């Protein structure tokens, strides 16, 4: 029984991470109507930055994490300006290709700067895990969970109670009309990319100790975060988080009770079924008047 609970715990741990990434992706999609295929590489870049700050230059973990997050935000700004702004209103595939281009460029830059070998990043603030009875709960994952829930709350607050949040909602609903009302697409776009990339940055730092910083280490997380976003119908940030949790648990259970080769397929098939049954998103309570 305890191993079953451990299984659930590890599933939830991974799940919350997927949810965090999914959240970032949903934000981007809501405003730019883009699928950010560069998210994984952007996160990895920030992980390398954290490595540079913490390991190479000896700053504390907190400084390193903050530095990496700031770099992430700047990166988001840059990507938005170069690849997204010129493509305002473009079809989905064009934006996807633009983010893929950024992915290729950034990956190359990362390799040029730091080489191809694997770096280790220390775990946040100590790094010992907590034990509840015989169940182990990873410290890093708890931090991820706290960050995710805080972000959800902050975003919800921002959307409801701030001007920029209102602008974001209007923009997501109807870009054209929002523009007519004086919402500057540049501002909304910029803000959202900064936030999303900053989130990517912090995930890169948090996953550093778990996956070890190397080229492409964030890609599997990105893919799973992507599918989490799908379960939220790509419109709901909380839906993405819930979707991520579901995915994590399903994955853990599948590995345990079927085989590791079938396991990766299972969550995907769930997603497919979910898409077919409820295209608006399984965890999305909003009645969708979405533009596909």
């Amino acid at each position, binding site marked *: 029984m305890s191993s079953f609970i451990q299984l659930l715990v*590890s599933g939830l741990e*991974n799940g919350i991470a997927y949810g965090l990434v999914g959240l970032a992706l949903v934000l981007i999609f809501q405003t730019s109507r883009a699928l950010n295929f560069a998210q994984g590489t952007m996160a990895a870049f920030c992980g390398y930055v954290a490595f540079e700050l913490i390991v190479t230059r000896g700053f504390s973990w907190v400084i390193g994490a903050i530095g990496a997050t700031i770099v992430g935000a700047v990166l988001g700004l840059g990507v938005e300006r170069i690849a997204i702004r010129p493509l305002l209103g473009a079809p989905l595939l064009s934006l996807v290709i633009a983010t893929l281009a950024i992915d290729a460029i950034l990956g190359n830059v990362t390799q040029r700067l730091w080489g191809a070998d694997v770096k*280790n990043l220390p775990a946040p603030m100590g790094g010992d895990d907590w034990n509840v009875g015989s169940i182990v709960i*990873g410290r890093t994952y708890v931090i991820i969970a706290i960050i995710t829930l805080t972000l959800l709350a902050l975003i919800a607050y921002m959307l409801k109670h701030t001007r920029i949040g209102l602008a974001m909602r209007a923009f997501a609903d109807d870009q054209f009309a929002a523009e007519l009302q004086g919402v500057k697409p540049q501002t909304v776009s910029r803000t959202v990319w900064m936030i999303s990339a900053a989130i990517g940055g912090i995930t890169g730092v948090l996953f550093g100790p778990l996956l070890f910083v190397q080229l492409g280490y964030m890609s599997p997380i990105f893919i799973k975060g992507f599918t989490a976003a799908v379960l939220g119908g790509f419109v709901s940030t909380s839906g993405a988080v819930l979707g991520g949790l579901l995915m994590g648990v399903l994955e*853990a259970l599948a590995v345990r009770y079927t085989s*590791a080769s079938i396991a990766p397929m299972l969550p995907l098939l769930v997603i497919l079924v979910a898409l077919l049954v409820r295209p608006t998103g399984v965890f999305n309570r909003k009645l969708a008047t979405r533009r596909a």
Partner: protein
Amino acid sequence: MIIVRLISSVREARRGWSRKQGDTVRKRTARLGLALLAVLALALAGCASEDAVDTGSQAASSGESSPGVTDSEITFGMATPLTGNASSLGIDGQKGAEVFIKWLNDQGGTNGRKWKLVAQDDGFDLQKKATTVQYLIQQEQVFGIWGDVGSTAVSALPLINEQKVPYLFPYALAKQMIDPVQPYVFMDVPMADMQEHALSDWIADNEPGDHKIGLLTLNSADGGDAVSGFKAGKAGKYVVGEQQYERTATSWQPQLVALRSAGVTDIVIHGSDVWTAKILTEAKGLGMTDVQFYGSSGSVTPQVFALAGDAAEGLRAVAINAPSTATDVPGVKEFTDAFAKYEPGYKPGVFALHSWSSGLILAAGMKGIQGDTVTRDGLVASLEKLKDFDTKGITAPVSFTKDNHEGVDKVMLVQGKGGQWVTMTGFIGTTS
């Protein structure tokens, strides 16, 4: 004027989006374009061929060296992942080869000539591998291809057989490379199943008592071989659980939990150093500190300790080389000294060491070429005469015959002690 028009049409593109999409199939430009297809295909492929000298015809007539050999240089090619996820392996191998070449050239090279390496990226992609090998053979006119990393090597086989180009010591644990025997392919790494078979025998022979062994392997070619190899050995009967993981795995907790419930006393991991380190870290987190872990040859790098810390203390592994940090082994000392001299600041791993040791074998083969001219067939003949070649302790002695290009069938067991790999046994083979 045309520039002005071009700019204005560009501006239009940036402003009005959907209006500028060329939806309509414009037949006239389609036809023009189809005719230009010929030009395009020719241009793209053709401009590469300007400097190429015809290397199509192979085997030198007597008195003529093979391509890749000038009066002063012998050029080898390497098609290996230099970008992408497998790049740390490819780059490690490349650096090892380059340092070896510098070291060798300082001693005068072989055959009165110095060596040169042309390394090209294959991105661990089959299609790119095929074009890269072709490119190296034809455009760079390499004498032979040396030191590639990855099972993509199999896709190069028809090419090198057709062009009769030696394919030397790729780090590719794919059975197709030696079975059936490829006349131009020479290997110096034992296959994954042989490695695990030897480990299995060793455990049964040297660790008496009851074991409950769990296998945790990558779902891949060599992963499958590893499993069958281990089970074919004497300790195969102790296997109580088999778990697999994917390349895209981010956590191994479910697999570890499953094995823990099966009550394992030992876990045999098959995977890279990075994955092994992660698995150990997670296992430690799950409190599985009384389990004896065994890594596979890919884990025998300094990285494991850098990444896993003391979770890797006591880890044992089956290695095809002596560890790259075991400077008590003369060959390894020579290797680390060379790196200190030519590439200080870079910590070489198992693939660099493999390039080094295979370089020693290759140099021996080159030196043994009969006759005045340096030919590919001459190298093949020379290598096939190699018997018990000593790589100064890095690998087991290497032998080739006409029917056996496998090179070695022995491995070594190593152990993690004090943040380093140390040798545990000499070179051992299978005992069953």
